[in-house]
C-alpha cells in the first residue's frame, strides 16, 4: 500500500514520521528554532495546543477547525505538536502529560472518522497495525486492545483463527486510537535538556498557570470537609502513624494532586504521621505527582479499583451514586456550598463556576477516570 499524504494530512497526523520529516524542512534543529521568529510563533501555538488539551472536547474541535492547507501553517501546526511535547516534558507534570496524550489520540480519532478507507489503513499501518479485510495479527491486536478496557476488546471475546483476529469496520478506528494512545504514552514525554527548558520558561509558566486555573475551575478551592470517606480514612491512618499500603498512598496522593492541592500541601498531609520523614515523603509524592519525570499515566483510581485494593472504607449514602472518589468530592462540595449559601441567604451563586466555564459534570469527570477508558460515557470501567 503506497499512499502519498498531502500537506494537510501532515498537520492532521503530526506524530507520523513523514510529518516530522516535513518539519525538518525548517533546516535547523528544534533547539535553535526556538530562538527564531518562526519558533516563537510555533511556541505560542504549542501553548494553545496544550490549553486546548485541557479544555476537553471543545478543545479538540477547535484544533481541528483551525487546520489549514497552507504549507507554512501546516509546518507551524507540526512544530506546535513537537513543542507542546517539550513544554509538558519541561513542566514535568503527569497530569499535563496525560491530558496532552489523550488529546492527541482523541484528535486523531475524530479526524480519522472522516477519512476514506485508504487513509485509515495507511495511518493504521504507520502505527504498526496492518489491517487487511478486517483482520489483523494477534500481537499488534493485543498491544492495542489492552489500552481499551471494554469487554468486547478482550481477546477471549473475539474470533481468532491461526493468529488472525477479526474486527469490524467501526472498530478499526477505535483500535488505531488505542494504538496512538499507547504510542504517545511511551513517546510523548521526552528528556529535554535543562538549558532548553530554561529558554522557554515563560511559555512553560503560561501552561502551568492555565493548568492551575482549570483545576480551580473544576474543583474550586480545596475543601477538606468534602473529601470522600475513603480518603478521610487514609488520612486518619496516616495521622495515626499506621503503615499504609502503597496503593492507599498512591490513591490519596493522586486524589489530592488532582483536586489542586500543591506539592507542599500534599506533603503536609503526610507529615501528620508521627514517624514522618520529609525526604521519603517528598520522594514518593513527587514520584506520584509526576514532578520527577516519567510520562506514564497518573490518575486517581475509580471506586471499583479502590474496592479491589480494599481501601474503599466507610461508604456512605452519597457513595452509592458515584463511581469515582473525585465525583464524590465534587458533589459533596456543591451540596455544602449550597447549604452554606442558603444559611447566609445567598441563592443561585455557585462559587465553583466562573463565567463561561464548562459545567458539564460528565464531561469533566472523563478527564480523571480510568486510564484505560477511552471516551466520554464509557468511563465507568472497572478493569485495572
Amino acid at each position, binding site marked *: 500500500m503506497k499512499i502519498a499524504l498531502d500537506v494537510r494530512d501532515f498537520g492532521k497526523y503530526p506524530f507520523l514520521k513523514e510529518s516530522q520529516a516535513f518539519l525538518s524542512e525548517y533546516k535547523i534543529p528544534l533547539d535553535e528554532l526556538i530562538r527564531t521568529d518562526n519558533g516563537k510563533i510555533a511556541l505560542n501555538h504549542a501553548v494553545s495546543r496544550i490549553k486546548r488539551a485541557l479544555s476537553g472536547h471543545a478543545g479538540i474541535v477547535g484544533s481541528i477547525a483551525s487546520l489549514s492547507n497552507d504549507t507554512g501553517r501546516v509546518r507551524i501546526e507540526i512544530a506546535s505538536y513537537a513543542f507542546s511535547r517539550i513544554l509538558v516534558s519541561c513542566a514535568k507534570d503527569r497530569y499535563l502529560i496525560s491530558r496532552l496524550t489523550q488529546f492527541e489520540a482523541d484528535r486523531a480519532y475524530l479526524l480519522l472518522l472522516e477519512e476514506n478507507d485508504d487513509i485509515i489503513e495507511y495511518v493504521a499501518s504507520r502505527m504498526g497495525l496492518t489491517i487487511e479485510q478486517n483482520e489483523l495479527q494477534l500481537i499488534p491486536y493485543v498491544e492495542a486492545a489492552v489500552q481499551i478496557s471494554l*469487554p*468486547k476488546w478482550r481477546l*477471549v471475546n473475539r474470533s481468532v483463527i491461526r493468529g488472525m483476529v477479526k474486527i469490524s469496520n467501526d472498530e478499526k478506528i477505535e483500535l488505531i486510537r488505542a494504538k496512538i494512545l499507547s504510542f504517545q504514552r511511551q513517546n510523548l514525554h521526552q528528556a529535554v535538556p535543562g538549558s532548553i527548558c530554561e529558554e522557554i520558561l515563560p511559555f512553560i509558566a503560561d501552561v502551568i498557570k492555565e493548568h492551575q486555573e482549570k483545576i480551580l475551575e473544576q474543583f474550586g478551592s480545596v475543601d477538606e470537609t468534602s473529601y470522600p470517606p475513603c480518603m478521610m480514612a487514609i488520612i486518619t491512618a496516616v495521622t495515626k502513624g499506621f503503615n499504609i499500603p502503597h496503593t492507599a498512598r498512591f490513591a490519596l496522593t493522586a486524589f489530592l494532586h488532582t483536586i489542586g492541592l500543591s506539592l507542599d500541601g500534599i506533603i503536609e498531609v503526610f507529615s501528620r504521621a508521627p514517624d514522618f520523614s520529609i525526604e521519603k515523603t517528598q520522594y514518593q509524592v513527587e514520584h506520584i505527582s509526576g514532578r520527577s519525570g516519567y510520562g506514564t499515566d497518573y490518575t486517581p483510581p475509580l471506586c471499583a479499583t479502590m474496592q479491589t485494593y480494599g481501601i474503599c472504607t466507610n461508604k456512605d449514602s452519597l457513595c452509592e451514586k458515584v463511581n469515582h472518589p473525585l465525583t464524590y468530592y465534587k458533589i459533596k462540595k456543591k451540596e455544602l456550598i449550597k447549604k452554606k449559601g442558603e444559611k447566609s441567604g445567598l441563592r443561585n451563586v455557585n462559587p465553583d463556576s466562573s463565567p463561561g466555564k464548562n459545567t458539564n459534570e460528565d464531561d469533566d469527570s472523563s478527564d480523571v477516570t480510568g486510564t484505560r477508558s477511552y471516551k466520554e460515557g464509557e468511563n465507568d470501567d472497572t478493569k485495572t
Partner: protein
Amino acid sequence: MNRETLEFTRECFRNYYTNSNILSPVSMEKREWGFIFFDLDAVHMRRHIAFLRAEEFRSYLKNLAPAHVYYSTAYYGSPDAPQMKDKNWSGADLVFDLDADHIKRGSYEEMLLRVKEELFKLLSMLTDELGFSKKEIEIVFSGGRGYHIHIRNAAVYRWGSSERRELIDYICGTGLEPSAVLKFQSDFKENNWKNRMLDSLMEYLVWLDGPDSKQAESSKSIEGVPKKIVEKILEKKDFLIEKISLGELSEKVIDNDVKTILNALLTKKDGNFQKILNERAARADEPVTTDTKRLIRLPSSLHGGTGLQVMKLEWDKIQEFRPLTDATAFEDREVRVELIKPFSGTFSDNSYDIKKGPYRVSESMAVFLFCRGYAELGGSI
C-alpha cells in the same frame, strides 16, 4: 529423609549432573538462577545468581548437586542484582504452566493423565487459534505433576503483564462476555469461545433437564437465574439445542432469556455451567503467565521432589510420553530400600502395591521413593 538417604540421593543427582548433557537456556548470561539444596533443615532458595557461560553453571551443578534448579523466564541486564528493581529487566519468555495440583486430585498417575489432556487443549489453542508456530513452542514435562510451555517469540518478549493476561485469559476462558461474544460472526465449526460457550449451554440444558439437577425442582432460582426463565428455557430446550448445533443463531434462538441465563451462569464461578465450560478451557495457572519475573525449572535438570527429569519433549513424542517411565534419570542397578509407608502405584511400567518393609528396587525408583518420602535407604537384607 535421613542423613544417609539424603547423601545417597545427592550422590545420584551428582552423577546425573556429571554424566548428562545439561541444556543451557537461550541468553543464559541474562538469566537469574535459583537453587534449592538437599539439606536436612531448609527449603530455602538461593537465588539472584548469574553465570556468564554455560560451563560455569554446569560445574556448579556437578559440584553442589542441588535438589531443584530454576532460572528466570526474564532477561536482565544485571541478573545477579540482589534487588529485583536493580536487575534491569529487558524482557521475558512467554510461559504457561499446567499443574495437576489445581486441576485434579487423585493418584499421581491419574493426575498426570488428566493434565496431559489439558496439555493437548492448550497446545491446540496456542497453534490453531492464537497462531504460534510449533517451532517457537517448547514443551517441557515439569518433573512433578505437570507441563511447562515456553514460547520464544521476539515480538512478545517485551510484553508486560496486561498483554500476557490477554493470552492466559483466552486459554482459560476468563472474562467471557456473552453480549460481546455473541456479536461476532463466525462459522459454527470454528474453535472459539462463542462456540465453546454455546456448546456448554447445550450441555448444561441437558443436565438441567436431567435427574442430576434436583435443584431444578426445589429452588426459586438456579445458579442465579429466576425459575420463571429457567422454565421457559427448558420448554424450548430441544428447539434451542437443534438450532444452536446447526449454528442458526438468529434473534429468535438467542433471545433475551438466553442472554439472561448466560450472563447469570457466567457470574456463578462455582456453578455447574462454569464446570462444563472449564472442560473446554485449558486450565493453565494464571499468575505464572502474567508474572514477568518468574523462576522456572531448567529443562534437563532434576526435580528434587520426584527424582524425575525436567524433560523437553518433541511434538511427535507427546502422545506416547509416559513420565514415570520416560523421565527416569538413573541407572538400573538395584538399591536396597526400607519402605516406611505402604506404596501403591506404577513406576517404569510396573505396578506396585507394597507394604512397609525392605525391598530391592531400581535406582530410579529408589530415588523416586526417597524424594517422595516413601522410603529410606535400606540396610543389608
